[in-house]
């Protein structure tokens, strides 16, 4: 199965990279850009056809390595 894990910074954690990107976008004169927070996306192939098992496995992967839960949140989506 294919899955996508998204890791984002928790609210309130300073994101200087996001701020720099936000500044660059605004400098183009693009109307309507509010704020930017940068995160990470992992596309992962899982060797199981069981959706619940895949989700449990990826949750473990996030807790063990992919996210630092002190400052980051994660979301697991099994896309089939």
């Amino acid at each position, binding site marked *: 199965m294919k899955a996508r894990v998204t890791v984002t910074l928790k609210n309130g954690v*300073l994101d*200087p*990279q996001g701020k*720099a990107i936000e500044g660059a976008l605004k400098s183009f004169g693009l109307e309507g850009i509010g704020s930017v927070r940068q995160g990470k996306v992992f596309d992962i192939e899982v060797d199981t056809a069981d959706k619940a098992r895949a989700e449990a496995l990826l949750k473990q992967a996030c807790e063990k390595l992919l996210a630092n839960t*002190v*400052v980051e949140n994660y979301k697991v989506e099994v896309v089939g």
Partner: protein
Amino acid sequence: MRAAVITFPGINRQDDIARAFTLAGGEAVHAWHADTALPGGTDVVVLPGGFSYGDYLRCGAIAARAPIMDAVRAHAAKGGYVLAVCNGFQIACEAGLLPGVLMRNAGLKFVCRMQHLKVQRGDTDFTRHYQAGQVIEVCIAHGEGNYVTDDETLARLEGEGRVAFRYCDAAGDETKRNPNGSRNAIAGVYSENLRVLGMMPHPENLVESLVGGTDGLGLFQSLVKAA
């Protein structure tokens, strides 16, 4: 006193810090990240600086899960000393040996320069060769040294006297010269039992007058005497 300096792929300061221990009168041996046990008789585990795994994913994140780290955690759990410098500090935080996270510098730039620090207390096994409130000059070289914790953890660190060093200017003003945006200008923190020290600055660079000063030597002398 025997220090075991652990090398991970991409670490590059292992020889400098081993040399600092030798200059201070200790013995330094090298250990490898894929080992599962520390060298016999290890008193101090050293996590040196560098760029383990190219800083991929998050600084120190992959090294923190290396095979040797179980032995390092066990060493710390039974009260052994751990000195974690720069990338080593990032590894120690990722490994759960110390609270907090080191995030991208607030100014987004890699900062490499001399830096004053204020020693917060002179009564730990890492700092007995210094006085509380003493200003020392060492160097820093990092892109991700912005120390972040939640408010509760920060209050606990402050309340328990677990801030080891703060960035400051030459006059000791801790509101000036914060190089990376760290909360409360924190440059280094202790574990609860004061046996694990993580710090971003490099004391091992300042151990000989020939190369710019000896303000870092006291840390190694303190440890050699204590361990």
